[in-house]
């Protein structure tokens, strides 16, 4: 039962206000400036050219041939990584849920990638794992008599997804393990008596039980993956072509390669819109699990 203490709502509001105020500032000030920049001509390399340009920056950003690809890639990246991490995270969490010797050691190994810096993650995979000649993966392929896969060139987006999944699956796993610990033993026993097989238990008991955990994972991953940048920047530079360019990278490209702040700001506005669309659907779909 929740209830307010005697008196008015002043104190709760007061307590809430620092967080709200700072976040509001954090959001509004850059947002305001971004909005402003998006309406003027502003290129760092040519600061002498100024002036209001209306929608020109937006038009320029959207007509960029890479734009559609970037939006699509952003969503594909998001969707696949979330799917992979959740699916494998679930499988692994189920696998190591029951006690066995060295369980906590296994858990330590499993979660380690989560603590690795994204840049290091990207460098590690690019140079030591995915390089088609020296990379460990290439050697494994060769060992099995296969033609080594040319990861970053032939499967750029997938490679990035792989790296991100490697990084985020431990997180998903961690949450799922936690969730599994609270699985009601009596429910499982009841299903034993009801004659459920392992798969049926997974389908009818574990999965619904973990709905909330899955929601949490999806929520957090979406927040981070929507603006993935370091991994792409470090490995594929968005290429080849625009195959692995996402919105964040495209904006980066405008802002820090082309130094076109106006168009980058317009891009940022699109990113915000996209984020809000995703957030809207996310809350629709998974929000009810978050009560």
């Amino acid at each position, binding site marked *: 039962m929740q209830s307010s203490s005697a008196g008015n709502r002043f104190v709760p509001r007061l307590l809430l206000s620092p967080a709200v105020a700072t976040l509001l500032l954090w959001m509004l000030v850059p947002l305001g400036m971004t909005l402003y920049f998006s309406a003027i001509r502003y290129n760092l390399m040519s600061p002498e050219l100024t002036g209001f340009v209306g929608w020109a920056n937006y038009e320029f950003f959207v007509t960029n041939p890479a734009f559609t690809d970037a939006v699509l890639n952003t969503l594909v990246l998001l969707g696949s990584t979330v799917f992979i991490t959740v699916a494998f995270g679930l499988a692994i969490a189920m696998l190591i849920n029951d006690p066995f010797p060295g369980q906590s050691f296994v858990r330590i190994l499993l979660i380690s990638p989560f603590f690795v810096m994204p840049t290091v993650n990207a460098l590690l995979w690019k140079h030591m794992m995915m390089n088609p000649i020296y990379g460990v993966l290439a050697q494994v392929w060769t060992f099995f008599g296969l033609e080594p896969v040319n990861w970053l060139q032939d499967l750029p987006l997938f490679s990035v997804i792989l790296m991100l999944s490697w990084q985020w699956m431990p997180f998903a796993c961690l949450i799922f393990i*936690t969730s599994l610990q609270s699985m009601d033993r009596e429910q499982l026993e009841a299903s034993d008596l009801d004659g459920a097989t392992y798969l049926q238990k997974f389908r009818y008991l574990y999965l619904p039980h973990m709905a909330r955990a899955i929601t949490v994972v999806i929520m957090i991953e979406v927040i981070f993956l929507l603006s993935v940048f370091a991994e792409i920047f470090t490995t594929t530079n968005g290429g080849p072509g625009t195959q692995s360019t996402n919105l964040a990278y495209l904006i980066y490209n405008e802002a820090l390669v082309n130094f076109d702040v106006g168009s980058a700001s317009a891009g*940022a506005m699109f990113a915000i819109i996209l984020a809000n669309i995703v957030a809207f659907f996310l809350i629709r779909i998974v929000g009810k699990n978050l009560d």
Partner: protein
Amino acid sequence: MSTTTVKKPVRTGKYTWNGAMITRTVASYGVALLMFFPIFFMILTSFKTELQAIAVPSLWIFEPTLENYTEVQERSDYFSFAWNSVVTSVGSTILGLMIATPAAYSMAFNPTKQTKNILMWMLSTKMMPAVGALIPIYLLCQKLGLLDNVFALIIIFTLMNLPIMVWMLYTNFKEIPSEILEASRMDGATLWEEFRYVLLPLAMGGLASTGLLCLVLSWNEAFWVLNLTSANAGTLASLVASYSSPEGLFWSKLSAVSVLAIAPIVIFGWFSQKQLVQGLTFGAVK
């Protein structure tokens, strides 16, 4: 409050070994080693010479060399970067907890119709790509004289992590029966005393894991660090950047510096994983 159901004791005896158990154990180790392999390989590489590092097939047995580590230490002052990492991540964690805790308290124990919306709004502020806000923030920092300043990083990290922190704390607080807080009120506790003596100790697990997560995220933050710092405030993320892709062979040196950069937080993460698991329940993920 429902009655607390008494947990059955878990089976304590030895493991019962049968086919399924063996398969499960072997599979678990297999998956874990696979996941850990890249890190292991990187550590291995950091003890190779540059030429050994690019050998095909990869060398597994070799005479380890420390030259990469000495080179790193010689070339850059690891400890000053590490110190900045510690200061910024710890600083932002503490500051973040200080702001997020009252907010989460207010939302958890005095919910209004807007609470969920505010929460979602907070989370949505995190979805905008940081690059989009770089130039504005850069200009702001410049105007305020906060370029290359650890305080700027602390503030930015704090704001960056605040939504997640509020959310995690909120869900953790919701787990605390409001009766306990009411009891303290009946005992004559002021708001501060209620906070200090009852809520905080009770929420320790949640606070710890929230703090931990925030620490990890801040430690690994690279974008703002690279763009807002130069000579004085750089963290380990910028140290790594100074070793990536120079002209010439650099794999083993990069490995060494990467190992150095992630070691503190990974080891810290290992030690605190229990805490993290306990607190990450996000309002009892159950």
